[in-house]
């Protein structure tokens, strides 16, 4: 007998289809289509266990959210509109479409922020929109909004983002407490991954059903709607619920996630802070309990002093190294759609690119001319590029520039190539090495703890998969770096897990040459005043030096933190200043970026009291010590 299916309610709106299309034939989930407000009612009454729920319906409830997935917008959304003939400033009455409470609340919030307080009358959009004349306005949501033809249109997605600088989350998968198993969560993620991949086809189907331009629908699905529930979206969601509660529009709500109740907490051993600090400073191996205690309780200076003591032992000559390398992003087409990434574009987007050989030639020639000895080649997960494309590319690079180090493909990309080419990891890596791959960058690690990964990058490889690539690569003689991007809402134990997983693999393979960490960078075009990440960065940097006792080098991240904080990092455990950045696209697409040429890198190193040397990827000095 097959297990009982989970009953799930969802809307039939176009924007929901990428999340629901993959559930049509699901063995785990039975789908029932209804209007947003009806979805909420069915979940409330227990008719269904799971619903694609308008977020206002979360308010005051103890529903559990499926992590990682939502329907939202970051700017204009096109399908949640206030419409009328005259400016909203003179409206005295607004007809609120009864189909969605979320949009009603959003409409009232946005008008209130503009100092506007018209009367609100609940009414279906079919009735309300025709009556929105003179001093009347109407809310219209969903697919109907595609046809809105009024002289005044206020896009509530755009208004929200202008108001808060945050994305708006309209709906997400929410379940009755305890109803969702980890397998169900996985099934929803699988369906989303499938549906996001066929957005073009969904748009075409929708156009056949109701008329209209399929390209317009495709753009709506790929440009307007965002399907991630990442750190920014969570802040957006919390802000929305918070503001609505302050205005008395919704009861107060604390968000709960479906995986919260399956967490297992290790019982922590009692350890002393001073003991852990001095053991760390003396190079003894810290266990997870000690590392967590340090992460939570040690002062930034004590952590820094202990890490500095280690750095003095590991690198006693007081030399700080750097490399001249160029970061080349061969494509920005990506299917992963990580919520924290501002770089990727979906296939077919007007800004999507794959670099041509001419572009690559120019970039590599410029690099060599600037004394560069390495190309860091990374890109999105392009669905159409198989291993042959990479083999050709690598052979071509090595033929043209035989001495350049090809530092290429993060574990995520290697998995992607293996999958699209139907190969196992070992064969994939063998073939890439035969074609010219020299070493592997440690990107895409984010936080190597699946509790965190599921939430911020549900479509990315798991911790085990990431480490598996590194292990195979190390066993085949490749060297790699390792990274951590923290500050994505994780806890101390997650960061410590990350470091300890790396340390375990390093004990086995000795393949990591260096570690680098940085905090999650706030988003594109957004001024992020009050960025409080510098001390968190210095703490994590120092902790890494103490926990990763078997990784020789620690890079300071001036690209994300600026030269000054990176100099402080050199006095708190780091011994390397990374790379001169000839080009970097990914972090800079997400706002803050600092630029330094080699002269400026060397000035920072020397000014901080160190001597300078250039290195290669294996951390061998090249060209001798440059200056005292």
């Amino acid at each position, binding site marked *: 007998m097959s297990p009982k299916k989970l009953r799930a309610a969802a809307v039939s709106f176009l924007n929901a289809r990428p999340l629901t299309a993959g559930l049509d034939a699901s063995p785990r989930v039975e789908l029932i289509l209804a209007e947003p407000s009806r979805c909420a009612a069915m979940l409330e009454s227990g008719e269904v266990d799971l619903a694609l729920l308008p977020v206002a319906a979360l308010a005051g409830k103890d529903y559990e959210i499926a992590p990682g997935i939502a329907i939202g917008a970051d700017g204009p959304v096109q399908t949640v509109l206030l419409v009328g003939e005259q400016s909203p400033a003179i409206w005295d009455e607004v007809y609120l479409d009864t189909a969605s409470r979320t949009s009603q609340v959003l409409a009232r919030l946005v008008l209130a922020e503009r100092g506007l307080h018209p009367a609100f009358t609940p009414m279906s959009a079919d009735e309300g929109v025709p009556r929105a004349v003179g001093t009347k306005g109407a809310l219209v949501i969903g697919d109907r909004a595609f046809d809105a033809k009024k002289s005044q249109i206020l896009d509530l997605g755009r208004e929200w983002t202008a108001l808060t600088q945050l994305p708006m989350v309209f709906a997400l998968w929410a379940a009755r407490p305890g109803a969702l198993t980890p397998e169900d969560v996985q099934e929803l993620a699988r369906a989303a991954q499938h549906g996001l991949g066929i957005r073009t086809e969904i748009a075409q189907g929708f156009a056949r059903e109701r008329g209209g331009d399929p390209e317009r629908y495709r753009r709506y699905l790929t440009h307007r709607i965002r399907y991630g529930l990442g750190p920014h979206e969570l802040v957006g969601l919390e802000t929305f619920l918070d503001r609505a509660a302050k205005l008395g529009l919704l009861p107060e709500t604390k968000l709960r996630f479906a995986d919260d109740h399956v967490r297992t907490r290790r019982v922590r051993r009692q350890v002393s802070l*001073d003991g852990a600090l001095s053991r760390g400073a003396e190079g003894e191996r810290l266990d997870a309990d000690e590392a967590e205690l340090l992460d939570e309780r040690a002062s930034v200076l*004590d952590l820094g002093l202990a890490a500095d003591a280690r750095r003095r032992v590991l690198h006693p000559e007081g030399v700080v190294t750097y490399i001249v390398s160029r970061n080349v992003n061969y494509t920005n087409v990506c299917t992963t759609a990580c919520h924290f990434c501002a770089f990727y574009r979906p296939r077919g987007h007007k800004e999507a690119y794959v670099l041509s050989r001419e572009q690559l030639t120019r970039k590599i020639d410029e690099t060599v001319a600037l004394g560069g000895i390495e190309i860091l080649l990374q890109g999105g997960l392009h669905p159409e590029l198989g291993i042959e494309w990479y083999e050709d590319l690598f052979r071509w690079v090595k033929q043209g520039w035989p001495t350049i180090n090809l530092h290429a493909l993060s574990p995520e990309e290697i998995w992607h190539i293996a999958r699209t080419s139907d190969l196992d990891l070992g064969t994939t890596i063998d073939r890439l090495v035969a074609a010219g791959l020299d070493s592997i960058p440690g990107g895409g690690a984010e936080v190597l703890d699946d509790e965190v990964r599921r939430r911020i990058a549900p479509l990315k490889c798991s911790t085990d998969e990431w480490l598996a690539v590194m292990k195979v690569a190390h066993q085949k003689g490749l060297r790699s770096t390792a990274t951590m991007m923290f500050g994505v809402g994780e806890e101390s134990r997650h960061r410590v897990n990350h470091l300890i997983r790396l340390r375990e693999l390093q004990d086995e393979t000795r393949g990591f040459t260096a570690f680098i960490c940085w905090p999650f960078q706030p988003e594109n075009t957004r001024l992020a*005043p*009050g960025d*409080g990440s510098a001390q968190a960065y210095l703490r994590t940097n120092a902790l890494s030096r103490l926990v990763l006792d078997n990784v020789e080098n620690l890079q300071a991240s001036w690209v994300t933190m600026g030269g*000054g904080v990176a100099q402080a990092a050199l006095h708190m455990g780091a011994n390397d200043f990374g790379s001169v950045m000839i080009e970097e696209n990914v972090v800079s697409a997400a706002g803050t970026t600092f630029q330094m040429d080699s002269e400026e890198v060397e000035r920072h190193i020397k*000014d901080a009291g160190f001597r300078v040397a250039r290195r290669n990827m294996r951390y061998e000095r090249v060209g001798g010590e440059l200056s005292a």
Partner: protein
Amino acid sequence: MISTLASRALERDGLGPVRDRVLAGERLADADALRLLESADLAALGALANHVREARHGDLTFYNRNVHLNPTNVCVASCKFCSFARLDDQVASEGYTMKLEDAVERVLARKPLGITEVHIVSGLHPDLPWEYYTELLRRIRAGWPELAIKAFTAVEIHFFARKFGKSYEQVLTELRAAGLDTLPGGGAEIFAPRVRRKICDDKATADEWLEVHRTAHRLGMRSNATMLYGHIERLDERVDHMRRLRELQDQTHGFQVFIPLAFHPEHNMIGKAFPKPTGYDALRTLAVARLYLDNFEHVKAYWVSLGERLAQTSLAFGVDDVDGTVLEERIYHMAGSDVPQALSEPDLHRLIRAAGRVPAERDSLYRVLRVHDGGAAPEHAGRQVSA
């Protein structure tokens, strides 16, 4: 108390005796300050400065809600580090001089924002009459009686004295009668004559700068002190600068805060030859200032100059004040600062709290108005950024 790790590191660096003096609350000699500046052990230096900072202020980190007003950038002085000053107020040269009523209105318009202090500094304008300055203060005072007015650097006071044939005391007394509360610390640059000759030959000398502050203190006014570092000066000239301040402070106790200011190189005459001092330089300078200036209650990191990340980092290096919300800053922005134009109060709180400190709003005289040791900032403050 400092940690065993810090104590050991200082011992290793040969700074054991300095450490002992600091822990005993004794005064550091000029040579000690120089040793510390040259020590190249940033974490240990930080630990020592942090000890002094926490002994004085615990975790409290001060800020205020302030607005800047720069009525004119027309200036007869030709300081080589300046990106703000213009020779005249022609549009082509980006020079400007605010009409009196506009300048007043700019300040009074901020009344709904809960600001407690206006910071007014200007170029040395060749033609503006004395009444412009007194009237400016008088009208602001009349329109907003409870606002603290911190205005005119010692260089401006000296300029007024010369131009209008008054003594420092007369200038200060008349400005006070018009509404002046305190003096800002600008114009100090580096006191050493060698440096002053090269970078700001034609404005108040070190002695004149100090004399203005001495006079202000004698009249019962409080003032601040700055140091512009990271250009042509040597480390011993920084120590010399701080020594002169410490000596005057011993006599008057009128200084509230010491503010080292990093030289910004863009759009001025010496920027090409001297790049912006690095963050390392900022941190060690702040830390040494905290240790050497034992008679200064506060050391400020001006976030507009350092950027938010470095300002936050400095809270572990002796700093207890991050300036304020700073609406309308022009001077550093004209020298290439790319930080936001203002920080809202919640933003400042976030920055301070993320460093494990406790935000404390102060007034112009460093009286604590409110310690934010829990809960969110007042609702009205959140809108300042868009103002």
